[in-house]
């Protein structure tokens, strides 16, 4: 059951990531990888909330495998972030590559922290 949930959540997360990226490319253009930044922030904040819930001891196994391991993992990505940063470095400007790396780290970890704090506020 756990494997099925991980696969379902991961597959669905990847599709949501793909569609979000298409939409943001059409809206904002390709000068900066907004789509990957957006899914990484969204995945990190949701996983922050789920982690806070798990620390409180209330999270069922199904939620963990479907949402935390599956969906958040499938939605967020490190490989595309890495490849896009390399592309910015070699094809656009080095400054934009550095901005992408720093902004993704800061915003992703910040979003996870905000989600964790929200969960603490809800469940404690």
């Amino acid at each position: 059951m756990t494997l099925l949930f991980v696969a379902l959540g991961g597959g669905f997360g990847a599709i949501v990531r793909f569609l979000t990226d298409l939409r943001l490319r059409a809206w904002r253009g390709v000068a900066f990888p907004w789509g990957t930044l957006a899914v990484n922030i969204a995945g990190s904040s949701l996983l922050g909330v789920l982690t806070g819930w798990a620390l409180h001891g209330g999270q069922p196994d199904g939620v963990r495998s479907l949402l935390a391991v599956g969906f958040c993992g499938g939605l967020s990505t490190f490989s595309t972030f890495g490849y896009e940063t390399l592309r910015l470095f070699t094809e656009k400007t080095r400054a934009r590559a550095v901005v992408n790396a720093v902004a993704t780290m800061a915003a992703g970890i910040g979003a996870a922290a905000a989600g964790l704090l929200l969960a603490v506020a809800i469940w404690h």
Partner: protein
Amino acid sequence: MADPASVPRPRWDVLAAVGAGGALGSLARYGLSVAIPHPRGQFAFSTFATNVSGCLLIGVLMASLTAAAEPHRLLRPFLGVGILGGYTTFSTYATDTLDLVTAGRPFTGLAYAFGTVAAALVAVYAGHEITRAVKK
């Protein structure tokens, strides 16, 4: 700026390839996390290994697809967006970092946060350049 209504509508087979790849990649990531468990507040070697190896592989994949005469149109959605996107994770990286900080190990947390990004960027560059050199 493009009209939001003009977003290209992906074909169902592209979405199916992304979804199937995402499912397989997520299972591989989960398998690795079970094989190399880490107690809370410890350096997350499995996430680190997942993200760095996934970045190496996307460098190899993108250089291979660029070099190929006519790559199959579902290869990138399945292997790149799906499998490698589902295999690697940014959200677990972010919460692993917070775990270390909240467990009272802020310096290990910083080393994990910056070390993963540095190793991943070196890996994607190495994968890309080595593949390009071999394909020439």
